[in-house]
């Protein structure tokens, strides 16, 4: 039993057919997400078990045509040839049969006989029809079943049907002999006549031959085709110019014949009310206010509401750490564990609430069909920057936090656009940059803090826009990167999709990004821990204990505090991290930073929030007045401006970088995402520093 070869089932279908829901229902909730070997097309697989039969169910990306199953010919071929080794389950949106069946027919032309699943059967009923599955099976030779992903109607029969084909496992039965559909039979016999090898070709080779039909020499007689497609249809007026026109005509002709035979009208006929919602949601005046309200709500829930569970997790883990610190022996291992590993784990876990809330909202947005409307509304704007409309949502989320935006980047379908997105998103100022901005704005620009903040964000937007356009120039979309913006019918999202998606996203984040974050935290800890012995300028412990013995009063306490912070400062500046910071000071001198600023940027790499806290430690201001301390050490308004700009752009934080690496799977792109912001930051800061000095701030 154990060594039986795996049996593969493939879910193929148009986008928006409820394919994912079917996958989740059939596999339970355990999807494994990987890639097709050698290519970057996502491959979700799960185990199907029913009536002592089992197989591996693989969910393919939604596609309108076999030609676009992958992002290039090689990928399509790779996936198609895989299909031949298993059984194809073709999910068809019963509310939109005509267009969905094109894919079915296309598969049959290549000799694949799928099991057809007519999903959303309620929508067919709403349109006033029933489907006669007996005649469908008789005509096509495909087993078929009507399902409804919401009510689970039809799924018992579907499971039984799949188990049946697993029991009598024979993927090779896929052949033309089963098909009684006129079109496919004639086409295949016609092509077999022209090409003796036709029947022995693999599906991928067949697809290529079919797609290149119009590359047949001119001597080729297309009139044969014309006889194939009975010119009974009214629309059939032009002479066929080439093979692809012939194929498309033939398919639609055959589909209309098929539907005429299989569809029976119901007594009660309802009108199709679904798209009338668009009259409000796509209304010239209401569309944008509604869309931005929805986005605003999502943004607010994700980041404002998400802040609470995040801080609970942070506090909880922090308390445990404190407790452990109390009971564990004070060794270097304990400190490594608590300040390195444990801090790293907390740094990873605090992201989870945001991620969960965001994905919850995104699934609702996507499954309801509203995301497509948003993409439709903003397509014009995003096109300037070389993106699809739906990328807007991702950039907006990036303002909250780059990490979940990256985790959702699969939403961008085009691979080239995704790469540009990876390089751009670190430049989008996330909310973690706010503490350093508000802190410095308050200290150095007290008369117009709001204006200054606005200027920062406006400049940030400008830079992102300009860089986006530049990247678009450098890496334009290829001509075949064309994405159809379907406006699917509005549907109620299925709750079944949430849990599997949560598990999948969390696992992904923890596995890949989590390890990078953890490692980075430990490395920084090590650099900040060693060397252990520091040469102090004076013996602080003795001085402090001397002071402690004196009669207690406020001024003594002040002196003790000052010594303590002085000691802390000297301790930190002796570590490798600070030494490194001091070593790179020459690099930052043109920007007006001192060594403290340079050093504080390093923990800022772990999380941008920590720039302020590091600065506070390094300056160890008397009375907690960071501003006075900074000014005393020579920070001026121009250098503060320069520091703010630098901290907005300089490098993506470590979690972001980890996510970029995970999503792009490319070391080069990750490196670019690190270098581009760094260089930009330096140039921008330098430019504005000089301007500010010139203007006499």
């Amino acid at each position, binding site marked *: 039993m154990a060594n039986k070869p795996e049996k593969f089932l493939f879910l193929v279908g148009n986008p928006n057919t409820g394919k994912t829901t079917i996958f989740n229902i059939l596999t339970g909730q355990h999807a494994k997400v990987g890639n097709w070997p050698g290519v970057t097309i996502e491959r979700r697989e799960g185990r199907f078990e029913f009536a002592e039969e089992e197989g591996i169910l693989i969910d393919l990306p939604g596609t309108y045509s076999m*030609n676009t199953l992958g992002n290039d010919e090689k990928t399509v071929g790779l996936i198609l040839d895989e299909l031949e080794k298993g059984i194809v389950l073709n999910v068809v949106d019963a509310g939109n049969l005509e267009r969905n069946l*094109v894919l079915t027919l296309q598969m049959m032309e290549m000799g694949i006989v799928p099991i057809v699943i007519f999903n959303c059967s309620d929508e067919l009923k709403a349109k006033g029809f029933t489907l006669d599955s007996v005649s469908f099976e008789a005509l096509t030779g495909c087993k078929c079943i009507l399902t409804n992903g919401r009510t689970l109607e039809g799924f018992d029969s579907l499971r039984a049907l799949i188990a049946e084909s697993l029991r009598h496992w024979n993927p090779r039965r896929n052949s033309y002999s089963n098909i009684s559909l006129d079109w496919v039979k004639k086409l295949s016999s016609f092509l077999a006549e022209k090409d003796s090898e036709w029947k022995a070709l693999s599906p991928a080779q067949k697809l290529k031959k079919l797609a290149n039909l119009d590359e047949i020499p001119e001597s080729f007689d297309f009139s044969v085709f014309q006889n194939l497609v009975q010119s009974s249809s009214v629309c059939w007026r032009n002479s066929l110019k080439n093979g692809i026109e012939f194929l*498309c005509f033939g398919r639609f002709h055959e589909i209309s014949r098929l539907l005429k035979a299989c569809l029976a009208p119901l007594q009660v006929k309802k009108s199709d009310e679904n798209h009338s919602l668009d009259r409000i949601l*796509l209304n010239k005046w209401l569309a944008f206010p509604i869309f931005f309200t929805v986005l605003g709500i999502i943004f607010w829930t994700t980041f404002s509401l998400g802040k609470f569970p995040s801080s609970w997790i942070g506090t909880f883990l922090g308390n445990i750490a404190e407790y452990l610190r109390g009971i564990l022996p004070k060794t270097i291992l304990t400190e490594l564990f608590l300040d390195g590993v444990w801090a790293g784990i907390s740094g990873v876990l605090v992201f989870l609430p945001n991620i969960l809330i965001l994905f919850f909202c995104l699934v609702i947005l996507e499954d309801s069909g509203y995301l*497509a409307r948003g993409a439709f509304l903003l397509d*014009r*704007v995003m096109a300037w920057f070389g993106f699809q409309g739906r990328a807007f949502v991702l950039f907006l989320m990036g303002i909250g936090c780059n990490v979940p935006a990256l985790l959702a980047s699969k939403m961008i379908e085009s691979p080239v656009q995704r790469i540009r997105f990876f390089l751009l998103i670190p430049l989008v100022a996330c909310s973690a940059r706010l503490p350093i901005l508000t802190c410095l704005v308050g200290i150095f620009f007290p008369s117009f803090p709001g204006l200054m903040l606005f200027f920062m964000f406006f400049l940030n937007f400008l830079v992102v826009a300009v860089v986006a356009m530049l990247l678009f120039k450098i890496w334009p979309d290829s001509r075949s990167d*064309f994405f159809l913006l379907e*406006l*699917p019918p509005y549907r109620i999202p299925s709750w079944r999709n949430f849990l599997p998606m949560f598990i999948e996203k969390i696992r992904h984040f923890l596995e890949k990004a989590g390890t990078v974050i953890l490692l980075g935290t430990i490395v920084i800890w090590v650099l900040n821990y060693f060397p252990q012995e520091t040469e102090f300028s004076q013996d602080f412990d003795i001085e402090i204990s001397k002071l402690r013995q004196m009669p207690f009063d406020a001024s003594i306490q002040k002196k003790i505090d000052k010594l303590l912070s002085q000691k802390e400062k000297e301790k930190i500046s002796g570590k490798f991290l600070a030494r490194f910071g001091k070593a790179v000071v020459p690099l930052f001198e043109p920007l007006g930073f001192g060594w403290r600023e340079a050093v504080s940027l390093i923990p800022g790499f772990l999380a941008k929030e920590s720039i302020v806290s590091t600065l506070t430690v390094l300056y160890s201001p008397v009375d907690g007045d960071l501003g006075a301390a900074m000014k005393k050490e020579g920070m001026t308004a121009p250098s503060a401006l320069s520091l703010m700009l630098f901290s907005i752009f300089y490098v993506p934080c470590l979690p972001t970088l980890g996510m970029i690496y995970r999503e792009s799977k490319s070391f080069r792109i990750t490196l670019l995402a690190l270098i581009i912001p760094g260089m930009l930051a330096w140039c921008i800061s330098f430019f504005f520093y000089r301007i500010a000095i010139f203007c006499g701030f």
Partner: protein
Amino acid sequence: MSQKRFTLAELPEGKTATIGEVDLQTPIGRRLLELGFLPGTPIKATFRAPLGEPLAFEIRGFHIGLRQCEAALVALKHDTDGK
């Protein structure tokens, strides 16, 4: 019929027309053809995005958004549209 080409991009909101020809020189045109943008198929312009682009169409029972330049690949027949 030697007038200027009348394309989907110029079809006013709410009007229905018949597809005449799709430019197959581009991958986009071929994809549209595969989706059922065949000569002789009726198509209705349903919405125009507030910023002028893209345009939404209803064809064969489904709704699709096309950018101006994509819609311009689809030529319409002159005699339809009621006028």
